[in-house]
């Protein structure tokens, strides 16, 4: 069975807030659910499937009760920031199998207001916890190894932030709207070698949501038609220390699965939403997905190649996690939302890709340099 063409993205909503000290996290989920339903032109009673991850207070049972839903299908897979890209794939599967017909996916939280809950840990706890692994230094190790093996430079990584900033200047909700230069990135303080502060994403409160449905229901609504045509997911870890290779991610497996199901290649993609927790995250994903060869990501991203209207592969035209929004330190949701805006022709006119009929939304979750998941969604305008 394939999900190709079976599931449509009928509703999207990105919460405009970037700082929400006066709201509860459950409240943000509810506001987002309401926003996504209004965008789709549906009501809460229509929802029969619900998807949420580790950011949802109390988990799926508490959320279904809090929101007052009555669902016949649910999924609380948590793979960090790419959970929502996994949920989109799983929602498409459920819709294709007839397990639900209108699925809601929500993400919300407040890391800017207060401390996040610590990550869940497994059998590795005693063997890793003492060493102070954070996102900064773990992604720093990936960048360090990439530079060692392929000669990638800090200047090349900086181009990714520069491109994101060019897009963010047009997004009134973006947390950072100033256009920056390669020099600005290199002159920002070193956080964890070789990553500078401007190689890192923003920390924001907020979230986003999606409504996924059948073709028949999508056609009865008023929004431009956007559908899923391919999905892949994968998990990678050091596996007993034997397979440690920080130069590639699980995207080398999730990407080809998604492209094969969709029947398209990276060359066909008009717009790419690529998870940008750090600049190195983007560079590695572009290689892993096949937009360039392994090791050539640095050359690929340089000189504005990711800037809409300038380069060959417009990416993260909302400003991405590097400049606009990285709600709950989980960037997968906003990747899907901007891809749908592009396919609908509803991105900001300054960054809208002409005739954008095929897009990719891809992300990793967890820690790229330790154990992580990847999920790739290929979306098409009908």
């Amino acid at each position, binding site marked *: 069975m394939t999900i190709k063409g079976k599931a449509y993205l009928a509703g999207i909503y990105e919460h405009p807030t970037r700082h929400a000290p006066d709201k509860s996290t459950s409240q943000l989920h509810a506001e987002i659910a309401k926003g996504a339903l209004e965008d789709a032109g549906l009501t809460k009673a229509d929802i029969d499937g619900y998807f949420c991850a580790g950011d949802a207070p109390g988990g799926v049972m508490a959320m279904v009760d809090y929101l007052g839903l009555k669902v016949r299908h649910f999924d609380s897979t948590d793979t960090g920031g790419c959970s929502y890209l996994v949920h989109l794939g799983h929602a498409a599967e459920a819709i294709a199998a007839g397990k639900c017909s209108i699925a809601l996916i929500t993400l919300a939280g407040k890391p800017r207001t207060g401390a996040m809950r610590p990550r869940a840990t497994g059998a590795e706890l005693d063997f890793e916890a*003492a060493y*102070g*692994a954070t996102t900064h230094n773990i992604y720093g190790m990936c960048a360090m190894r990439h530079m060692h093996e392929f000669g990638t430079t800090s200047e090349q990584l900086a181009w990714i932030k520069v491109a994101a900033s060019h897009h963010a200047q047009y997004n009134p909700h973006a947390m950072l709207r100033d256009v920056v230069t390669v020099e600005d990135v290199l002159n920002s303080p*070193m956080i964890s*070698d070789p990553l500078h502060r401007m190689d890192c994403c923003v920390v924001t409160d907020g979230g986003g949501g999606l409504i996924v449905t059948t073709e028949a229901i999508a056609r009865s609504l008023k929004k431009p038609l956007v559908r899923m045509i391919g999905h892949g997911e994968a998990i990678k870890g050091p596996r*007993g220390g*034997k397979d440690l290779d920080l130069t590639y991610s699980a995207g080398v497996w999730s990407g080809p699965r998604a492209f094969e199901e969709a029947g398209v290649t990276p060359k066909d993609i008009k717009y790419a939403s690529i998870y940008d927790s750090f600049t190195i995250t983007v560079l590695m994903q572009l290689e892993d997905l096949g937009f360039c060869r392994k090791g050539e990501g640095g050359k690929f991203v340089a000189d504005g190649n990711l800037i809409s209207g300038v380069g060959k592969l417009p990416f993260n035209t909302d400003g991405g996690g590097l400049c606009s929004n990285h709600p709950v330190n989980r960037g997968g949701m906003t990747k899907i939302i901007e891809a749908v805006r592009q396919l609908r022709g509803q991105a900001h006119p300054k960054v809208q890709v002409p005739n954008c009929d095929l897009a990719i939304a891809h992300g990793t979750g967890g820690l790229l340099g330790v154990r992580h998941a990847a999920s790739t969604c290929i979306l098409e305008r009908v």
Partner: protein
Amino acid sequence: MDSTVKYPTPQGNPETKHFWEQTVEGKLLIKRCTACGEAHYFPRSICPFCFSDQTVWEESSGEGEIYSFSLMRKSASGPYAIGYVTLKEGPSLLTNFVDCNMHSLKIGQKVKVVFKSTDGAPLPFFTPV
């Protein structure tokens, strides 16, 4: 992290109890599967490669080289260098580099294990040789 850092005490469990008993003796153990011959770290009872339960403890030389590292410039306990070491026996492991100039670390550099105390069993760290 410097010597004033208080490291978390390993909690241990029936599967890893022997590993922590041996760090008290200054030994770094890995596991090796007698069915497929592969070594792994951190230790499991069932081989993560061939799924055999015929895994045995083996003392590592404690020698290896830096696969990658990153110097965290600020933290509550000061700067520290996280990294992966690939042991001579094959497996790679996550660690910190200690008792050294953290600004001169290099990928490929030879390192050896050193143990740092906790309220319970000592923890393995690495230092350049």
